C-alpha cells in the first residue's frame, strides 16, 4: 500500500498524477493550471510538467471550458476541467444542464459523457461575495448530473478517481477550499470511521466519536463541514457525548437509506450544510429521513446552514454568516436538551 497522502490537497494531486499516468484519455484543462503556478489552489501542481501535452491552460471562458470538456468526453476522452472558483460555475450552467447532463439520455444511450468538473467552494478566507460561495445546490437534482463532495473522512483521491475513470456520467466534483491544507485523519483514536456503500459508487462515511455508549445524536453533513465537524466530535467526546456522523460522498443522487436505522434508533438528527438556508441539500436529506422514520424521531430534525445572504468580505461578518464549529456545537446541544 502506498503511504497515505498527508493532506486533502496532496491526495487530490497524487490521484490526478496517477490517473494521467495510467490513462491517456485523461485531459486536464482550466485557467492558470500550468506550472510553476499549478492552479489557484495548486491541485494541478506538477501536472503540466509531467504531462505537457495533456494539460491545457485555457482563456477565462468558463462556459467554453465546460463546453470543450463536453466535446472531449463525447469523443472518447476523459476530461477533467477545473473551474477556478466554484462561484463561476454559474457561467457553465447551460453546458452542464442542457448539454453534459442531457446528451446520453436524449440520444437514447448511444453516447456517454464521462466528464469531471472540479471546483473549490466555500468561504472563510475573506474573499467576499463572489469568491466564497457554496453553489453546489444549484446543480443538485439535475437529472443525470452527479454531484460529489469528498469530506475529510473520505479518501478524496479515490472519489476523484472514480469520477474521472469510472463514472460515465458527468460529475461536478466539489472541493471545499478549507479542506485543502487539512491532514486526512486516517486511523486514529478519536474516530471510528467506516465506509458505507450507498449504491451511488461514492462511499458514504460513517464516523463515531470516542465517547462510550449508544450515540445521542446523528449528524448528517458533507464536504467542507467535515472540518468543523471533526473538531466538534472531538469536543463532544471530551464531554462524554457519543455522536455518530454520516457524510455521503455523493450529494446527488442522495441515498440516505443506509443511515435510516441509526436515525430511528438515535432519534435526534442534525443536518448541516455549508450553503445558505432554504432549499438546497438539507431539505432533501431531511425529507428522506422524515418520510422513512419521522414518527420515531425524538425531536424535529435540526438543520443548520449559512444565513440566506451574501457572504461578506469582513471577517467577523463572514463568520456571522457562515456555519462555524461553535454554531454546529450549539445546535447539537440544543437538540440534545430538547424534548
Amino acid at each position, binding site marked *: 500500500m502506498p503511504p497515505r497522502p498527508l493532506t486533502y490537497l496532496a491526495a487530490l494531486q497524487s490521484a490526478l498524477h496517477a490517473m494521467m499516468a495510467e490513462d491517456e484519455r485523461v485531459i486536464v484543462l482550466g485557467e492558470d493550471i500550468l506550472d510553476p503556478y499549478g492552479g489557484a489552489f495548486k491541485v494541478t501542481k506538477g501536472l503540466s510538467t509531467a504531462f505537457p501535452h*495533456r494539460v491545457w491552460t485555457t482563456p477565462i471562458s468558463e462556459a467554453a471550458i465546460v463546453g*470543450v470538456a463536453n*466535446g*472531449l468526453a463525447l469523443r*472518447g476522452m476523459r476530461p477533467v476541467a477545473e473551474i477556478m472558483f466554484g462561484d463561476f460555475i454559474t457561467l457553465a450552467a447551460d453546458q452542464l444542464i*442542457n*448539454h453534459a447532463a*442531457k446528451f446520453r439520455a*436524449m440520444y437514447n444511450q448511444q*453516447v456517454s459523457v464521462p466528464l469531471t468538473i472540479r471546483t473549490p467552494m466555500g468561504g472563510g478566507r475573506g474573499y467576499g461575495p463572489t469568491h466564497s460561495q457554496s453553489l453546489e445546490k444549484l446543480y443538485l437534482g439535475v437529472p443525470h448530473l452527479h454531484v460529489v463532495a469528498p469530506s475529510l473522512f473520505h479518501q478524496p483521491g479515490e472519489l476523484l478517481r472514480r469520477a474521472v475513470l469510472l463514472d460515465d456520467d458527468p460529475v461536478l466534483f466539489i472541493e471545499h477550499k478549507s479542506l485543502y491544507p487539512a491532514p486526512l485523519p486516517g486511523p486514529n483514536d478519536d474516530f471510528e470511521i467506516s465506509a458505507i456503500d450507498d449504491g451511488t459508487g461514492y462511499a458514504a462515511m460513517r464516523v463515531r466519536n470516542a465517547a462510550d455508549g449508544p450515540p445521542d445524536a446523528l449528524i448528517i453533513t458533507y464536504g467542507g463541514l467535515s472540518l468543523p465537524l471533526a473538531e466538534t466530535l472531538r469536543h463532544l467526546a471530551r464531554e462524554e457525548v457519543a455522536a455518530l456522523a454520516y457524510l455521503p460522498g455523493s450529494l446527488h443522487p442522495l441515498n440516505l437509506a443506509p443511515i435510516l436505522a441509526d436515525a430511528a434508533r438515535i432519534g435526534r438528527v442534525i443536518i448541516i450544510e455549508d450553503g445558505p438556508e432554504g432549499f438546497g441539500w438539507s431539505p432533501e436529506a431531511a425529507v428522506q429521513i422524515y418520510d422513512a422514520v419521522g414518527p420515531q424521531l425524538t425531536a424535529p430534525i435540526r438543520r443548520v446552514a449559512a444565513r440566506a445572504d451574501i457572504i461578506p468580505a469582513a471577517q467577523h461578518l463572514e463568520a456571522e454568516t457562515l456555519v462555524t464549529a461553535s454554531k454546529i456545537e450549539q445546535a447539537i446541544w440544543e437538540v440534545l436538551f430538547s424534548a
Partner: protein
Amino acid sequence: MQNLTETFYRQMQTIRRVEETLLKLFSQGKIRGTVHTCLGQEATAVGVINALDRQRDVIFSNHRAHGHFIAYGDDVAGLIAEVAGKSSGVCGGLGGTQHLHQRNFYTNGIQGGIVPVATGAAAAEKRKGSGAITVVFLGDGTMGEGVVYESFNIAALWNLPILFVVDNNQYAQTTPVIRAQAGRLQDRAVPFGIKTGVVAAEDYDVFSVYQAARRAVTYVRDQSAPYYLLLNSYRLGPHSKGDDHRDESEIARHWQNDPLARLAEQLPPARRQAIDAAIEQRLQTILTAIFAPASPLNAAH
C-alpha cells in the same frame, strides 16, 4: 460534373421533400412540437457535407438540422420516425427534431451551446490523431451568443481543426439579421486570426457552397487550424411550422431564385423526373412503414 449535379440534386430534393412532408404531417397532427425546415438552404447542407469525409469527420448542428442530417447519412426513415416520436427514430423518439444523433453527427436545441462542444470534439480528434475535422453549423442569429466567441478564441489559440459554418439565412426567427447583428458577420472571426471565406448572397448555390467548403476543409485538415465560412442564403419557409410575418413579396422574390429549382434546370428533364420519382417512391415506402397502423415501426416506443 454531371454526376455531381445529379448527386447534389438527389440529396437536395430528398431534403426538400422530406421537410415538405414533415410540414404536412405537422398540419395533419401526425407530428407535434416544432419543425424547423431548411427550405431554400439545402445547398448549405449538401455543399458542405459533401466536402467532408463522412467516414471520419464530425458534425455538429442545431435546431435546423434535417438537411445536414440527411446529407450526412441519408437516413430519411430514422429522421421522420424520430420527429414523429417513434421508437424507430434515430434517438428512439426521445430527442425529436432538435436533438439528433447518429454516428459522428450531433445536434442540440440550445443556440450556440453546441459550438464549444464542437471545439472540444475537434480537440479530441486532434489529440487522437484521427485526421478528422469537425464542422459546426450556426445561424446568423446564433452569432449573438457569447460562447461562440469563446470558442473562436480557443479554436484559434489551440489550432484546432474545426470549420465554423454560419448559414446567414437573413433571419433569426422573426428578427432580420440587420436588427440582431451589428457590423459585418463576415468579419466576426477575423480578430481571432481565423481564416474566413464567404459565399455572397448572389452566388449562393450548391456548387459555390461546395467549392467554398472544399477550400475550407482542405485548409482545416492540412493546417489543423480553424476556418470560418459565411454562407449568405435565404430561408424560404417559415421559421418553424406556420406563422411567418415577413413581407410576402420578399419571400416570393426569393422563391423565384430557389437554389434547388435552379439546380434542377441543369439536369435533363428525364433524369430529373426519374430522380424525383425515385424519391417519391422511397418516401412513400418510408411513410407507410412508419405510419401504417400495423407496422412494427409504428410502435409508440
